[in-house]
């Protein structure tokens, strides 16, 4: 009887731990309606011009108990580049810049994630653009993880983050216009994900 009780407790404990860990590491699908992948690049030294990508998909695993077990992957449709100026967008899609017809996708995959503060961390990953893969670090801030408050979302668990980072476009072979048009591209990423 005693051994049966111990076994039952062990099974219950194991189930609880498994349940907790499943809760701690949730997989989220990126919500494109509430996610922005924005970039800025210097224009002739006068100002920083902003643009964004309108089409992308991705998912992330967020483990708030052990952040190092979290991971992110995002695929961006380079033809969806949008700077609110048709001619400029056509030029950005051309072989001079994102070369969207030849390289339709730009991907980011995390390799390691480290915690730097209570709600902050650093994502080290690889960005593949124009067929070239280079390491990139994003400074990320965890904003919130909670069930969606609006009834039409049926209480789905939502997690939100802000990320910032930069790359040198010439490292990816995008050399046209450097240095008149800035070499450094800064990313401003605001992402929300719905638990899958």
């Amino acid at each position, binding site marked *: 009887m005693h051994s049966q009780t111990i076994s039952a407790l062990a099974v219950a404990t194991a189930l609880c731990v498994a349940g907790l860990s499943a809760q701690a590491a949730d997989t989220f699908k990126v919500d494109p309606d509430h996610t922005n992948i924005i970039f800025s690049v210097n224009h002739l030294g006068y100002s920083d011009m902003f643009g964004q990508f309108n089409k992308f998909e991705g998912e992330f695993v967020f483990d708030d108990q052990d952040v190092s077990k979290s991971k992110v992957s995002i695929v961006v449709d380079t033809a969806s580049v949008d700077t609110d100026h048709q*001619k400029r967008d*056509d*030029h950005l*899609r*051309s*072989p*001079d810049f994102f*070369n969207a*017809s*030849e*390289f339709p996708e730009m991907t980011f995959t995390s390799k390691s994630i480290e915690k730097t503060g209570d709600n902050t961390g650093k994502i080290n990953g690889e960005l593949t653009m*124009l*067929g*070239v893969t280079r390491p990139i670090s994003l400074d990320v801030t965890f904003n919130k993880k909670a069930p969606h408050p609006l009834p039409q979302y049926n209480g789905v668990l939502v997690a939100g983050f802000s990320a910032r980072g930069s790359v040198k476009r*010439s490292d990816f*072979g995008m*050399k*046209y216009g*450097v*240095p*008149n048009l800035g070499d450094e591209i800064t990313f401003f990423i605001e992402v929300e994900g719905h638990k899958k």
Partner: protein
Amino acid sequence: MFADPITQSVIVPAVAALVLMAAIRLALGDKGDETPPLATAAIPIAFLTAYVVTLGLPPYPPRASSQKLAYVALIGLTLGIALDLIRPKGPAWLVPLAGVAWPAVIAIWLAWPKLKGFDLFAVFTVAMLWIGGALAFLRLSRLRAKEPYSLAPGILLLIGSVGAAGLGFHFASIAMAQLAGALAAAVSAALLWNWIAVILRPDGPLPFGRGAVFGSTSALFAIVTILGLYTETSLWVLLFLVPIFFAHLVFGERPGGDGLFARAFRPVLLLVVGSVPLLLLGSVVMVLSILTAT
């Protein structure tokens, strides 16, 4: 200093072509039929100089089509020089074979990202571009073989390059427009040299070697192929460039004879006649733009 687009696509290639032509000519001297054709190899070398100034050194191996462009021009130049060295003793079919096979290699290499995805439209586009490119290669090679001192191959290349530059500018690839402009500037510099020389005496110009023909035509064909495959440029619009390379057929053999006046104005006349397809091309692009806008 080299960041200005006019410097990149006009001044650098024109000055480089003139300086290199003079340097090669002086360095090698006049050693009969073999040496002078090398001097005009300065044209594709000047183009490559402009490429490096505009887009930097291309990586090896190249990944993007715009990076492959530099290698295409370099291999084309080498192939042309090799043909110039081999041809006097080699078989007659060698140059036509290279003129047909080489543009096929260029088109397939540049289009590979699309071809490996079994994109049928890309296969059709590559086939059409190859036919157009092969016609240009064959026509220019034939002209060069028939009249080594003629300015005609250079004039036709100049018109074709200006056309490609205009299309690149209109269809949003300014880098391709600049590179086509750089080719036009390098060819113009060589033509200016040769035009002055041809006025002075009929065999005065530096002959348009196969290094110049294959190097320059390879660069132009690669630019046109990139425009056709990776920009919004319509294939049908690009095919308007092909008749340019047949403009010389409008004239008979040496129209106007060999007098000073004829020697001076025959190239100008060819420039005007060869530009007619370019005017047609411009009109078609304008009409298409208006139709698309409405």
